[in-house]
């Protein structure tokens, strides 16, 4: 060790060749980060498009209704469902990240909080997806 400070990071070696994992390496900590990053990028690109389609409101009723009709087709409907599911993961896991950083017990409970995020995500999806898919796949009155 070239420096004393580094020694605070050394951990006991286990017989396993794989690292046991730290907050961001391996297991839930890493996969939640991967998902957070992928969902963040997806939401970002949707937001760019969404600001532009909403801007059609300033052009004419016809222009706006034309873009909106594309959002109402079944393929886009499935895409919107996926997008909302992605937003829900990003939002709940974002709160988990904030708690890890600011709550004194956050790092200790990060794994438990990950499973709470997954539970909320499943509940949120079960609440949203049927309603939205119903609206997308039934004829307007």
């Amino acid at each position: 060790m070239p420096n004393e400070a580094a020694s605070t990071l050394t951990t006991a070696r286990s017989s396993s060749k794989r690292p046991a994992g730290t907050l961001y390496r391996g297991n839930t900590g890493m996969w939640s980060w991967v998902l957070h990053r992928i969902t963040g990028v997806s939401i970002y690109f949707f937001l760019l498009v969404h600001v532009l389609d909403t801007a059609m409101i300033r052009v004419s009723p016809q222009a706006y209704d034309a873009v909106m009709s594309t959002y109402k087709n079944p393929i886009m409907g499935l895409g919107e469902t996926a997008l909302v599911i992605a937003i829900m993961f990003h939002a709940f896991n974002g709160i988990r990240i904030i708690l890890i950083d600011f709550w004194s017990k956050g790092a200790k409970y990060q794994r438990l909080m990950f499973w709470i995020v997954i539970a909320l995500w499943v509940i949120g999806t079960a609440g949203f997806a049927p309603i939205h898919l119903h609206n997308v796949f039934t004829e307007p009155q």
Partner: protein
Amino acid sequence: MSTIIEAPRTPRERSSKGRVNWEKWGWLYMRLSGVLLLILIFGHLFVNLVLGEGIKEIDFAFVAGKYATPFWQWWDVVMLWLAMIHGSNGMRTIVNDYASHRTVRRVLLIGIAAAAIILIVLGTLVVFTFDPCNTFIPADQALTFCPVN
């Protein structure tokens, strides 16, 4: 030339005293805006996609109805600013992580910043200058309450 890799947990040395630590404020912004965005985005999705007939109801008249009140104008504009800056700053982090070529990185970062500025200005103008009875709208498409001449 050799690069010095400092031991982990070595305290960060300030290059010069009194300079603003932008990276720290960006980090804090991601967390503050995140909490606000959760409320704003979930409210936005609930009102637009869950209540009533959801996406089926969304058309010019629906949005005109929302933008008739300052409440929804401000809701959308605050959400626009917070989300564009949060998303762009997040994309900046990701570009810094993966784009190791100097020029590529610079082009991507400038693109992200330009997109953010253009869309924030455009979106804000759209919300605040929107007039459902705007004179460009043909009489046969105008909403019923508009004084058509």
